[in-house]
């Protein structure tokens, strides 16, 4: 039971708003020691996994290129382009992005878009400019539209990627069930991701239309 200490530290640390990196490291060390492992062995295990998981930090390599074109005025230009487009609204634009993100993720192309490479330089400025056509933008409205831009990217990729056969989550599910003697075809798993993907599009799409109405008030 002592090893559950780590989960308590994670939740408690967040509630008192300690730095999350600190909370995670303390939770890891406490859990390892509570399980009776020597401290140095816990640090080594932590370091080993930190090293083998470096690939999750790789997407930040887009920043020099993105920063460079932002400096030259990309975000302003993206906004100006949408401002001239007839019938554009923040909600409609984000629905189109949601559909594109779900479909490309379902084809395995999760890395072609993302928060740093598309949302910040393109999607958020475009959605803001579209929203500004209807109503004079206040800072609160601008921030709301930006938050929904980021949310739409997440919903799109989460509820699209599992339709792709070779996605890591599908492989993980298959691998774990295979370990207990249940052999599944990846296709069975990805077909069962489709109903949830449709539901995600309907629910989030409806909320984006409501966002338009909220912005017009």
């Amino acid at each position, binding site marked *: 039971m002592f090893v559950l200490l780590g989960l308590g530290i994670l939740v408690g640390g967040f509630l008192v708003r300690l730095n999350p990196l600190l909370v995670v490291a303390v939770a890891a060390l406490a859990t390892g020691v509570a399980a009776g492992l020597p401290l140095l062995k816990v640090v080594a295990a932590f370091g080993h996994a930190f090293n083998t998981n470096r690939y999750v930090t790789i997407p930040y390599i887009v920043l020099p290129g993105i920063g460079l074109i932002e400096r030259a005025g990309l975000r302003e230009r993206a906004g100006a382009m949408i401002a001239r487009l007839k019938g554009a609204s923040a909600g409609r634009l984000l629905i189109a992005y949601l559909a594109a993100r779900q479909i490309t993720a379902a084809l395995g192309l999760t890395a072609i878009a993302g928060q740093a490479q598309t949302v910040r330089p393109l999607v958020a400025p475009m959605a803001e400019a579209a929203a500004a056509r209807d109503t004079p933008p206040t800072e609160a409205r601008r921030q709301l539209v930006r938050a929904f831009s980021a949310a739409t990217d997440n919903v799109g990729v989460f509820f699209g990627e599992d339709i792709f056969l070779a996605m890591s989550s599908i492989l993980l599910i298959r691998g*774990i069930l295979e370990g207990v003697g249940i052999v599944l075809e990846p296709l069975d798993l990805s077909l069962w991701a489709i109903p949830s993907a449709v539901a995600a599009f309907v629910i989030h799409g409806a909320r984006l239309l409501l966002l338009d109405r909220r912005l017009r008030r």
Partner: protein
Amino acid sequence: MIGLPALYALGGAIFAAFAIVGLAARRFGNAAFWGLLAVSFLLGDRLGDLANGGLALAMVALAGMGALKSAPVPTERPAQNYPSWKLFGPALLIPAGTLIGTLALRHMSIGGVSLVDPKQVTLVSLGLAVVVALAAAMVWLRAPAAAPAIEGARILDQVGWAAALPQMLAALGAVFALAGVGDTVGHALQPLLPEGSRLIGVIVYALGMALLTMALGNAFAAFPVMIAAVGLPVLIHAQHGDPAVVGAVGMLCGFCGTLLTPMAANFNLVPAALLGLDDRYAVIRAQAGTALPLLGVNIVILYWGAFR
């Protein structure tokens, strides 16, 4: 074969450049943090586990002391008014290049050896697209040589320590696995599961996936725990549920949890920083109205689908 080592070298060089920018701007905390990350990327495989652990803990100490400054350094804008294609071209080269690379490089081989590590085709394609887009932007925009490092560091400083959180969480997951946290959670859940109730089993499994994902920041870490604790013994063995549905929809219940937790920093906290939102939980707030009803729908799909 081009694979992760080449990507890590590229990443290490970029983080090292950000560290140098930090030094030049006298932001020593930021310089040390990105410098350590650069060392991890460039030398991590040679350092040994204990040194890597020490390196990670040093990064944690810097973040915990509040040594990183996040306010963006003001940047000098070129006065020139560029034609649109020079701006959108490089921006679209990154997704387009990744797409083309993913499709084209998968089956390319020289003398029977794959040109690109088949498991890493997408990330390698992203790396190549990034290099091509950066080169194009440098030429088309006639930018000064130091501009990419300065502008990239400007954005990454805004993200700050949260950039390293996903990697730290993966390390936490490894320690949890070593300590047997999963089995203990499974035992703790047993009293909640009355014998023979299909609906309660489905609800404990689905909510357990969502809540454990929220605590761990990652559905991949929660899945093995919940499948061993509830999915397999209760839903699949005792109730004869369809394992494909239990597996697939269970994972998606976890994804609903990912939308709701600050622990999933790269999806929820990093964008709030990237977009300059005053409320660091603004993205989670925007997602909650989608994630909660969607979790309900997933429970229904699980219940009907698994026991057709």
